[in-house]
């Protein structure tokens, strides 16, 4: 066990699964090199952010496939490879590029098991970077997990830390269904203790990163860290929060969310994806339907405005949910007073 970055945790998960199972292959733009073959260097970069560094050297060109810039073809090829016996891990680079290959994901990979009467297995993982805060502008900053969560037949994973990333990615690779694995691009250098051995974290079980009595905060991916910071600050002001990291949006651990809301009576949802039809609205609907009587204040959402992600740094930080915005939402829900109807 030692401290590892989010990047290293993902690299280690890929490496260990590729060593364990020869059917695991990588595909994607720049996964092998990124600098080309100049000066005899084939793996200088290891993907645009260095996540797959060293894998080409260890596993070679037959298992680490550097693809052309043609998402439709290689995501389609990965889906086909999955359904015919391999376990491809295809990297979409920026999740925003899904626009070029949505049919392959939505109409093909997601439907194989269902439309072939349960006889087809599609052990496909699609890794992609998501999220704003990187100053990468509107076409490279979206948090599109609600799009995938909307499609039955896909599993959707959003790791919130290096430990979570390694265990969830290994589970994703061993899973027999298509899994969308979303990595927040701002988190690659975050570090924590990560076991050296391979381990799995099951899908559909939320993790409680804080336990409190007053307010339940549900947050995803990078927002879990923000929620933890807000909870720690609020603790000093006498407000204790439970923070739920659902880990996967599909399947979603409804029970844990409902139980925690029943305990606290107040709910704040932190979601950095666009605010219409996102995870915050989904969970708000769930709680409104199943736990309305336990609520002591209106549900509050900490979400960005319904605009493209701005490029200007000041606007981008204004756009993003923040620790301060979470604190304000929690405080507002605590200050809510129920007026008895006459």
């Amino acid at each position, binding site marked *: 066990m030692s401290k590892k970055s989010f990047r290293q945790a993902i690299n280690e998960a890929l490496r260990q699964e590729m060593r364990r199972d020869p059917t695991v292959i990588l595909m994607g733009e720049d996964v092998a090199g990124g600098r080309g073959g100049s000066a005899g260097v084939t793996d200088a970069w290891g993907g645009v952010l260095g996540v797959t560094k060293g894998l080409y050297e260890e596993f070679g060109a037959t298992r680490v496939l550097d693809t052309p810039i043609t998402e439709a073809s290689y995501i389609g090829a990965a889906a086909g490879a999955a359904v015919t016996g391999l376990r491809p891990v295809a990297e979409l680079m920026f999740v925003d590029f899904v626009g070029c290959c949505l049919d392959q994901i939505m109409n093909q990979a997601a439907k194989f098991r269902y439309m072939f009467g349960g006889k087809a297995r599609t052990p496909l993982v699609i890794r992609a970077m998501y999220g704003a805060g*990187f100053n990468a502008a509107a076409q490279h900053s979206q948090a599109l997990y609600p799009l995938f969560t909307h499609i039955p037949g896909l599993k959707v994973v959003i790791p919130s830390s290096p430990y979570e990333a390694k265990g969830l990615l290994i589970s994703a690779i061993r899973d027999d269904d298509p899994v969308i694995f979303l990595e927040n691009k701002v*988190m690659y250098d975050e570090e924590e203790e990560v*076991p050296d051995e391979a381990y799995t974290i099951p899908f559909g079980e939320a993790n*409680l990163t804080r*336990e409190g009595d007053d307010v339940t905060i549900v947050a995803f991916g990078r927002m879990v860290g923000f929620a933890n910071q807000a909870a720690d600050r609020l603790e000093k002001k006498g407000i204790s929060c439970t923070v739920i990291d659902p880990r996967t949006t599909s399947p979603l651990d409804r029970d844990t969310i409902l139980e925690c809301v029943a305990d606290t009576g107040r709910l704040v949802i932190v979601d950095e994806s666009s605010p219409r039809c996102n995870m915050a609205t989904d969970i708000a609907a769930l709680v409104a339907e199943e736990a309305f009587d336990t609520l002591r204040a209106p549900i509050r959402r900490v979400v960005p405005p319904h605009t493209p992600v701005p490029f200007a740094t000041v606007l981008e930080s204004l756009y993003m949910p923040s620790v301060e915005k979470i604190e304000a939402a929690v405080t507002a829900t605590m200050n809510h007073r129920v007026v008895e109807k006459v």
Partner: protein
Amino acid sequence: MAQDITPITMPKFGLAMTEGKIAGWLVEPGASITAGEELVDIETSKITNTFESPLAGTFRRQVAANGEMLPVGALIGVVADAAVPDADIDAFITRFQAEFAESAGDGEGDAVADEPVTVTVGEYTLRLHERGEGDEIPLVLIHGFGGDLKNWMFNHAALAQGRRVIAFDLPGHGGSSKDVGPGTLEFFAGVTIRLLDHLDLPRVHVMGHSLGGGIALTLARMAPQRVASLVLVAPAGLGRQINMDFINGFIAADRVRALQDVLKYLVHDKSLIGRRMADDVLRYKRLDGAEAALRTIAAACFPAGQQGDDLRPDIQAADMPVTLIWGQADEVLPATQAEGLPAAITRHMLADIGHMPQLESATAVNTIVEEFIKTKVATS
């Protein structure tokens, strides 16, 4: 001070950068520089970039050496007018470094690491945590089925007054390698003896809990000259009965809630079993090989739904001081298994305590162990 001194600090290239390496200075101390002039190449985990001088002046001091890795914001050089005296530059650097160290120092002391380490003993990798020092005979702590060295978190430091106390993870457990061979008490006792050899410990007190108690007794049979005394906490091997709902449930549970219910068998005060504790155990159980190791041990030690090893002959034959600690409300191994033993063995039966007295009644257990080692062992 009329003249300004400007610190050049480790830049932050992008939001994710936390530290950078000096890949190579491009200016010599004493050089006159212009704003925008290339000063130094900085390498991060992602990228190597050239850092340009934010101002014109004289590059007075190169604080960071080539190849040095430093956090963002750390002082790497100093720019000032050529007229600023060297003494002022020195004072500036000292003050900057002190302030930076103070702001960065939160939670990062330079005390000796009191943390587990990993050692290689033959083909096994074992995580062990050593505390304390002194001339007294060292004490070795052996945890039970599914446990790890953290089971002794309330005892380890308390018992390490005047002696070395070594807690370790058995093979198949915690941070140790997951190969458990045949999974028998003899196997674990054998590995423990090899660990004692590795640590150059000719003779130790051994405190074992549950399955670890059975291992301690087996160790005392296999290498009696190595064992100065035995402290057995709810040990295995003194009766047939064992709660297989605990054993099988512990192996099978892969979710927090399910495991939390199983862990409640371990204690009398059920409120002790929080979500965090279950979460911590799951972190171990989810490691590749952990579940298989537990299944191998359960098959070897608890075949046919009961304990396979009868260690009563061993405890009767033991010629070192032995003491027994058992919670009367034990739901895993019934406390009645402490009956019918030689009178020389002091028994401490703790009321309203479950299978883990060292956790649930830590102070009492620590006192019993100290007294036992002081009186019984010293006079024997």
